[in-house]
């Protein structure tokens, strides 16, 4: 296969495809990921379309981030991709990579899933950026996916830091026009250097020195945020203006094109001078953001009083242009005419594939009237009737350990998890059961593929995308 759309300068691309293309054009040498909706297409696209980038499916997100950080330490540009809950798994390396910094640009793409279309919870990944003391960019369409990813590698090297880029379902899975830039001239990685051990060995003595560096870096980034080209102010009618980021900016702009706006391409650190100027020029500032009051909390702490924010904008689920319009217009909102009430339509929840080997297993467990600790994967769908044979689902690998805990409290139970989930985080709890003399039954369902996310391979079957 050739590059998506060949070398056509302008093309329609999915957000995830634009991220993959940007990785290639930014000179990325190593990319790793664990599949998870809505991030999965990125690594698939890199692997199938850009042979100059080494791409692998790692057994979990922690390993993926560790793999690419090794490449970064060696001086190569490297990209890790995951969904929001994946970053929980990769949080351990992330928090310390903030201290070591990087050599080759290191970018972590995290794709959120507001409304939890395909996830076990709803998280606002912007919270990692303040917690982890690393910057974060947030694109709102495919063009921005392409540009921000390229920009993120430059930022990473300039400020010696991992850079988070947050996408979400609507950004990752929408197709918009992308005007491509000139690919970067590929260079050889700078290489490893033993003399740099104090930068990379995070023992307390070095941690304390790095801690100062981390603080200074975030201060420098805060100054830089005011000049950052993707933080943009637009002054139209200055009676009202909105502060927003990502796709939420597009929604608000669509509904209120006459208002002024401050669009934050970098969601952390915040551009303090720009915010001061915006509050100075605009009479009523409305903060429109999806999920948590991330900007609002910070901006209120700076001493500003927004006209509206989370007092009217919902704090959960996805935003849409309609929801924003309704929230801000109140009684003046005129709902579009609905010809068919969605509640009247038959529900079509996702189901296990016809013929899948998971079906007879769950049929058997149902007949045995077993309580089943479940896990994350397509087999979670067996929770629904008529199979009704999954009774818990928390996070990758949790079911194995939960069955052990329940057994210690109550008596023998079983857990079910898929083969990919078993390799992701199921080995350590099984070891725990043996070591601590449990008797839980662990059932691994192996349909030879990571089913839920479009069939990327697992380590068991060596369906690597490369090699």
């Amino acid at each position, binding site marked *: 296969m050739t590059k998506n759309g060949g070398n056509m300068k302008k093309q329609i691309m999915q957000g995830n495809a634009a991220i993959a293309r940007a990785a290639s054009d930014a000179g990325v040498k190593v990319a790793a990921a664990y599949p998870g909706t809505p991030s999965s297409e990125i690594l698939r696209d890199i692997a199938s379309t850009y042979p100059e980038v080494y791409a692998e499916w790692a057994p979990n997100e922690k390993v993926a981030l560790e793999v690419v950080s090794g490449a970064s330490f060696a001086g190569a540009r490297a990209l890790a991709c995951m969904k929001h809950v994946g970053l929980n798994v990769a949080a351990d390396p992330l928090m310390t990579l903030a201290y070591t910094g990087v050599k080759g640009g290191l970018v972590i793409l995290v794709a959120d899933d507001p409304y939890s279309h395909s996830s076990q919870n709803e998280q606002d990944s912007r919270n990692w950026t303040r917690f982890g003391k690393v910057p974060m960019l947030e694109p709102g369409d495919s063009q921005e996916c392409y540009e921000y990813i390229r920009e993120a590698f430059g930022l990473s090297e300039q400020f010696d830091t991992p850079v988070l880029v947050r996408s979400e379902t609507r950004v990752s899975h929408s197709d918009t026009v992308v005007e491509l830039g000139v690919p970067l001239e590929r260079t050889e990685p700078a290489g490893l250097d033993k003399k740099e051990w104090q930068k990379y060995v995070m023992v307390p003595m070095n941690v304390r020195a790095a801690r100062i560096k981390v603080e200074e870096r975030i201060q420098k980034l805060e100054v830089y945020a005011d000049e950052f080209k993707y933080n943009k102010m637009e002054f139209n009618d200055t009676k009202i203006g909105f502060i927003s980021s990502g796709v939420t900016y597009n929604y608000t702009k669509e509904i209120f094109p006459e208002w002024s706006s401050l669009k934050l391409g970098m969601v952390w650190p915040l551009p303090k001078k720009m915010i001061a100027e915006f509050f100075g020029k605009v009479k009523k500032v409305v903060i429109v953001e999806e999920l948590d009051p991330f900007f609002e909390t910070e901006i209120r702490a700076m001493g500003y009083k927004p006209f509206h924010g989370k007092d009217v904008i919902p704090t959960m689920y996805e935003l849409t242009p309609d929801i924003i319009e309704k929230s801000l217009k109140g009684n003046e909102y005129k709902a579009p005419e609905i010809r068919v009430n969605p509640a009247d339509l038959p529900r079509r929840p996702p189901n296990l594939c016809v013929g899948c080997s998971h079906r007879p297993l769950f049929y*058997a467990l149902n007949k045995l009237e077993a309580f089943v600790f479940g896990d994350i994967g397509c087999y979670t769908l067996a929770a629904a009737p008529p199979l009704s044979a999954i009774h818990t689902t928390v996070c990758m690998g949790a079911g194995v350990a939960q069955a052990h805990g329940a057994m210690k409290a109550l008596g023998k139970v079983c857990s079910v998890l898929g083969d990919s989930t078993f390799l992701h985080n199921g080995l350590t709890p099984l*070891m725990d059961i043996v070591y601590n003399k449990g008797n839980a039954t662990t059932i691994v369902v192996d349909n030879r593929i990571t089913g839920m996310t479009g069939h990327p391979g697992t380590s068991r079957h060596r369906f690597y995308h490369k090699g």
Partner: protein
Amino acid sequence: MVDYEEIGRALGVKSIRKVDPYKIDETMEVLKEEMDKDEPSLVLCVDAP
């Protein structure tokens, strides 16, 4: 190639069973046996064993 049976054994699981879930009666028997055992057990359901 990762071998789940070998992994289970290396982790110390003594009772490891492989079943073809399409053979439902056999699968139910194995599940019943394993769930009655007072020791850790690992059941591998492979659709083409």
